């Protein structure tokens, strides 16, 4: 379908359905989507350039502000990359605490996404309920780290403060509560008829698309490939507390829903197990100001997938280069692949399928692939085009 301005419907950049500005040019044939051209870069802040004139410690607070939802994943990825360079062995208790906070963040991120799917299929009640339950996790995180989202809890040589001592009882209560609720949502999602017909069979991807486009995280696991950084390349305390990787194999939004609920339950189990087995001991060592020369690669299983950090130090207090590749960046091509062949009504649902976090991804972006530039179409043109397009099609068949 040759791209022409007449049948192009803009979706974004500022659109009530999308929380962050991104812009998808949808080439429609009637209501069916034929071609999707993402054009993003509206929230690009040049973080990688900014990192090059800040010291190692200051960068910790810069990188955790890349994404509002997976901020702790960014900070542990960065701090562990530097600990690699320093050949540092941080205390075991700090690694356990990092695991607990990372899993709490995964629960809060998945619940946020589940609520959004409800919102985008018009099911506001599910959105309200899930976000009501998510508050429990956020309050828990606030009692431990002092802030709901920007936890600023992990530094280069471990964790800044120990767990509050009376945290055991509320932690167990909240985890049990979240497990119960996710059990209820699991049954609701597969039984609620209006939700099922909006999500089953939508945005189907299979293994060869995945092998070609390399998505990461739940999008990869929903096609049956069990690939999780926590298991394959364990960091923090994942070598002692092994998460078991959930997969499903029909790769549509419904399976993504169930997969993420399973992961929430799995995270609850991990948090409780880590809390039972946590060793005593210090949580922080004194870290040197400067990092020896060298380069290090570190990746972490953020809620949305593999978050990749490449840090290169010239041997001083200022980094030479920090390369960050966020999971949404890898998933974007697969998402546009999922969109093809569906109707306009499915666009928000499929877009949430990959759980986009454009704040993360927008340090880099892709531009539209088409050639012709500006367009200004009026309602009548689009309608007129639709009418004679169908007339001409009918005459052909």
């Amino acid at each position, binding site marked *: 379908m040759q791209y022409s301005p007449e049948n192009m419907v803009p979706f974004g950049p500022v659109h009530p359905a999308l929380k962050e500005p991104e812009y998808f040019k949808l080439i429609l044939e009637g209501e069916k989507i034929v071609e999707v051209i993402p054009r993003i870069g509206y929230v690009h802040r040049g973080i990688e350039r900014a990192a090059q004139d800040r010291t190692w410690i200051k960068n910790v607070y810069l990188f955790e502000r890349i994404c509002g939802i997976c901020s702790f994943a960014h900070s542990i990825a960065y701090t562990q990359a530097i600990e690699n360079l320093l050949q540092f062995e941080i205390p075991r208790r700090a690694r356990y605490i990092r695991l607990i906070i990372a899993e709490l963040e995964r629960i809060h991120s998945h619940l946020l996404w589940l609520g959004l799917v409800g919102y985008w299929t018009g099911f506001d009640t599910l959105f309200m309920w899930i976000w009501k339950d998510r508050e429990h996790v956020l309050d828990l995180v606030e009692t431990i780290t002092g802030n709901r989202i920007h936890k600023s809890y992990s530094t280069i040589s471990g964790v800044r403060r120990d767990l509050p001592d009376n945290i055991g009882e509320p932690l167990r209560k909240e985890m049990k509560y979240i497990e119960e609720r996710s059990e209820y949502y699991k049954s609701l999602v597969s039984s609620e008829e209006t939700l099922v017909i909006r999500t089953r069979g939508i945005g189907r991807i299979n293994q060869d698309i995945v092998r070609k486009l390399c998505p990461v995280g739940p999008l990869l696991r929903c096609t049956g490939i069990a690939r999780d950084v926590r298991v394959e390349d364990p960091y923090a305390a994942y070598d002692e507390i092994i998460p078991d990787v959930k997969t499903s194999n029909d790769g549509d939004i419904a399976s993504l829903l169930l997969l993420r609920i399973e992961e929430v339950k799995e995270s609850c189990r991990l948090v409780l197990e880590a809390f039972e087995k946590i060793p005593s001991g210090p949580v922080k060592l004194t870290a040197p100001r400067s990092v020896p020369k*060298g380069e290090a*690669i570190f*990746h972490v299983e953020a809620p949305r997938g593999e978050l990749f950090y490449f840090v290169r130090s010239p041997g001083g207090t200022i980094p*030479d*280069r920090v*390369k960050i590749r966020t999971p949404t*960046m890898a998933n974007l091509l697969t998402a546009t692949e999922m969109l093809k062949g569906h109707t306009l009504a499915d666009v928000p649902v499929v877009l949430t399928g990959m759980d986009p976090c454009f704040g993360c991804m*927008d340090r*880099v972006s*892709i531009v539209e692939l088409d050639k012709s530039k500006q367009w200004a179409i009026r309602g009548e043109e689009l309608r007129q085009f639709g009418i004679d397009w169908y007339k001409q099609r009918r005459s052909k068949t």
Partner: protein
Amino acid sequence: MKVGGMISKFRKSTVITVSPDHAKETCQLIVTELPEFYHLSTITGVDDDPSITLYYHFWQGGDFLSVKTGVPKTNPVIPSLIDVLPSAILYEAEVKDLLGVIFQGNPLMDRRLLLPDNYPLEAPPPLRKEADPEKIRKMMELE
């Protein structure tokens, strides 16, 4: 490795340093030859004055495999990996925009990428050493 290149191994990631024209061949070997499913994590570009070094990071199971090549700053051109790994289109587009490396065969090369539309054309790409933010900001105000 069949391709001439220096292999250095530190901690969990192996780096194969190759000359620019062998880069594509090495990546092709990694993807096709090696049995496990190699996942292209990303392409990193670093500006070390005389040349721009590019790393192609592949992730497999526990360890990393990075193909490292250097491209002269005067004419930073290198064949693109699109036909071998379609997902590379994203990462090449990013490196092109931030460092000005041209990847032959990548459809995004002629489009302005993540930089704002009023980023001055003659200004050096932002991540280059000689790009000084104050100067660029003044240039942008003029336009």
